[in-house]
């Protein structure tokens, strides 16, 4: 971007909607930032001399003679090591009372990685949560959301995952975060003594919704700095992407675009993919891993937001309350990590894939047994044993408060197999049974 030697100030708005203003202006670039009545805005449409600006914080109180000046550049972030440990708003301005960050100025929303330059993701991320490490292992460079109902403790689980994962940097992109949750993240990170590894870009529910649109790009610009320039393993947490998508639909609605399914803009897939595809394993060793949250309404995954997300991300994690043990577990049936094949049995112990499958199959048998029980049918001895197995399996492995390493998870599984089943019922390859079976 060329620097502008003079800044012309415009003072005549021709149109004002709830999210946009339009005025006549010259020499304005697409995507450029402007200040409208002291508020940050971005060019979203130019027709002849008519320039339409999206005002991030809303247009309440903006008069038709508001002062408008153009910055001649897209939204930017200053990147350097000074970012570490800091909290910023959606514009990248400090909100923790600290000083401005010095560093190199970068445009947010950088171009895509050339697909032939990507490396295949291949490093396991250990979280200590067996519902993830055992059944749905995560890999650096992966992108995966929690599909969760709003009442589920997804932010807590995500904070746990973030702290236990051995990431060099954790970047939190909070969109529509309640102030309580924001403080929760801040406390958890602080108490863990991990604050120097963490960078946060936060838009809380107190802030205008359209501002959220900047958060993922800010977070990912910082992530790319650490992953590319510093070859670090960066973990990006995005919560809640449903509120991001809602903000997209607000803007497209104000711009009179024709909505597609569920009132979402027709470009929702591309808009989400642009963010999630920033997850990458770089050839130079750095990586960006994205763990996001997509809140569901009533568990409906056919809604346009989770549906499009599912087609983009490499799996999804579901949380569920297991009433048998009274704890939240990672649902072993609906959760899926598409990249686990790249690491299980390779970076983990050889018995991992078979143990994982056998345990889930036996857990599924317990669900059938439960259905029988609820319908008043008699249970066989095998049914009884699957129910007991399921209870311990949930308690010792699936519950999100479990924190052990993968070998221990496998050992616990073998213990449970030996305790409740015969070798034939577990049906694992003979050589593994000989090596690991516990009586």
């Amino acid at each position: 971007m060329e620097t502008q030697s003079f800044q012309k100030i415009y003072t005549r708005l021709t149109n004002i909607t709830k999210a946009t203003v339009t005025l006549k202006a010259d020499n304005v670039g697409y995507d450029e930032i402007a200040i409208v009545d002291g508020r940050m805005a971005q060019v979203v449409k130019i027709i002849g001399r008519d320039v339409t600006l999206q005002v991030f914080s809303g247009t309440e109180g903006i008069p038709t003679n508001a002062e408008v000046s153009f910055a001649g550049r897209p939204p930017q972030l200053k990147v350097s090591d000074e970012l570490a440990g800091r909290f910023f708003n959606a514009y990248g301005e400090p909100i923790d009372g600290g000083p401005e960050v010095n560093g190199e100025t970068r445009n947010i929303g950088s171009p895509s990685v050339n697909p032939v330059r990507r490396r295949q993701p291949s490093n396991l991320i250990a979280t200590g949560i067996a519902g993830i490490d055992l059944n749905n292992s995560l890999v650096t460079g992966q992108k995966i959301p929690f599909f969760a109902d709003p009442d589920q403790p997804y932010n807590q689980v995500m904070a746990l995952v973030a702290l236990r994962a051995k990431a060099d940097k954790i970047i939190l992109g909070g969109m529509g975060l309640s102030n309580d949750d924001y403080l929760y993240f801040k406390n958890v990170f602080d108490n863990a003594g991990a604050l120097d590894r963490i960078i946060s870009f936060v838009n809380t529910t107190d802030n205008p919704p359209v501002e959220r649109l900047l958060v993922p790009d800010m977070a990912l610009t910082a992530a790319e700095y650490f992953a590319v320039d510093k070859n670090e393993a960066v973990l990006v947490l995005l919560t809640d992407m449903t509120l991001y998508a809602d903000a997209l639909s607000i803007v497209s609605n104000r711009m009179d675009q024709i909505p597609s399914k569920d009132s979402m803009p027709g470009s929702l897939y591309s808009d989400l993919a642009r963010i999630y595809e920033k997850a990458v394993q770089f050839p130079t060793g750095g990586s960006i891993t994205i763990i996001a949250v997509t809140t569901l309404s009533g568990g409906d995954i056919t809604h346009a937001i989770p549906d499009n997300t599912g087609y983009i991300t490499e799996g999804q994690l579901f949380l569920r309350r297991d009433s048998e043990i009274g704890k939240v577990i990672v649902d072993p049936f609906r959760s899926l990590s598409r990249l686990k094949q790249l690491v299980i049995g390779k970076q983990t112990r050889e018995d991992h894939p078979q143990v994982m499958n056998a345990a889930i199959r036996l857990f599924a048998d317990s669900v059938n047994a439960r259905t029988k029980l609820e319908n008043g049918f008699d249970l066989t001895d095998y049914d009884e044993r699957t129910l007991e197995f399921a209870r311990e399996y949930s308690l010792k492995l699936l519950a999100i408060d479990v924190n052990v390493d993968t070998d221990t998870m496998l050992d616990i599984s073998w213990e449970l197999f030996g305790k409740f089943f015969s070798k034939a019922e577990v049906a694992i390859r003979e050589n593994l049974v000989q090596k690991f079976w516990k009586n």
Partner: protein
Amino acid sequence: MERKDKTTGSVTGIIANLVIVEVNGPVAQNEICFITLGDEQLMAEVIKVVGKNAYVQVFESTRGLKPGSKVEFQGHLLEVTLGPGILSRNYDGLQNDLDKMEGIFLKRGEYTDPLNREKLWDFKPLAKPGDRVIAGDWLGEVNENDMPHKIMVPFKMEGSYWVKKVVPEGQYTVNDKIAVIEDEEGKEFELDMVQKWPVKIAIKAYREKPRPFRLLETGVRCMDTLNPITEGGTGFIPGPFGTGKTVLQHAISKQAEADIVIISACGERANEVVEIFYEFPELDDPRTGKKLTERTIIIANTSNMPVAAREASVYTAMTIGEYYRSMGLRVLMMADSTSRWAQALREMSNRLEELPGPDAFPMDLSAIISNFYSRAGYVYLNNGKPGSITFIGTVSPAGGNLKEPVTESTRKAARCFYGLSQARADSKRYPAIDPIDSYSKYLEYPEVQEYLEKNVSDHWLSDVLHAKDILYRGKEAQEQINILGDDGVPISFHERYWKSELIDFVILQQDAFDKIDAVTPIKRQQYMLSKVLDVTEMSFRFDNFEAVGSYFKQIINLFKQMNYSEFGSGQFERYEGELQALLKERMN
């Protein structure tokens, strides 16, 4: 579209990647232009003209673009460059060679040459002076990865010509002149090995396009046996996320009996393309023993790459397919996923403020899709030799709902339907192709039936239809059992159900990650199907319903062991022997 002076214009409006250009001369629909932004040139395509305003879709980000920017129109449509050296390349949707681009990130306005201009090719002449030729006729051939790559009279040349000269056998670069031809008026044309062709127009350098009749073997049993696709046929695979669309597509592209495989990764995950980049150079082509990369071309326009180029990418892939078909080769083209292509059309239609059709897709979606599918097919070239493009597209139905516009429109265009079922995927029955809902219209073609009877077995068709009936009856029996309870139905219901399970486990389910089970040649499929059908014809003695299940589980286990064994090996025969003994035990 020949013009003396280039039409130019200047930008007057910008809405995301839709740019309005005021022009000072003639422009054509779909004409390519370049917009100057600083020292970058952004490629764009005309998609609508209103008065002096041309609406163009830009294949790049328009960030920073200003009204008044200069635009230069090129006088041609979006074209691909065709010549030796396309095999094994990784292109983006506009045929830029991705490997030639510098740096980790894609640079805006960087366009790279799809061909290697320095490489020397061993050229052999096929035509001689005095031959009469028309567009698409073979003048010579070079060896491209051991594939005879024909050098043809450019498709753009209309009318007929006399060959004046063809260079002798030897080494030439693609830009060396290899032939001179002369038209009716005596005008001479010097030809090299490179030609260009607009992607949105089908190459029609062939004599006739008969109905497809030859089976295209994919090695995937629930396709080849139950719902076969033909050389030159069309099929589509709709499925909700997580049902194994991509694994199935990769399996087909690895195993199918094709000379050339073109994979168009259209708006999907980049890591899936990376998997191909990593796997294919390691994997052997099961038929030739060469590496899979040698017969493969990848067009990668992943979901984060510019959306207009995504729309172009499937056309780029299809045009390259037509080029290789004109050499008398069997081309298999896969597009994953055509829904993303349709969404690219929707985004543009939306910005153009066109009146929307269902789900805000453009009204002519159905026509665009069927037009595209019709470019596949089996052809006889002008020299009588056959060539084919088999096209299989995946569809990602929104919300898993098969009534959505892209699935509906594709159903009208494609002849094979391989519906992936969430229920089958949930119970890990892979590939999750639903045996009841899926179909292949080719089974109804008399020429296909004749081919199968001649080349597979004389009772193949009736066997296949019989197997489908058993699956259907098994499903009905299962529903009855679920409603009335295990005890509430006669034992024969359980037998019927388990006979369908036998077909399901032995024929339909296939382990894509097992070396032997992953690929089943048609001879073996025929052997196994008739073996399984023999069992379904037998009648057994059972005292109670529990005995039925446990007995059939044993049969299924032995059949599965056979599937995992080398066909006809000692191991295979041993399991077969055990199976016979087991069957004797209970036969009536």
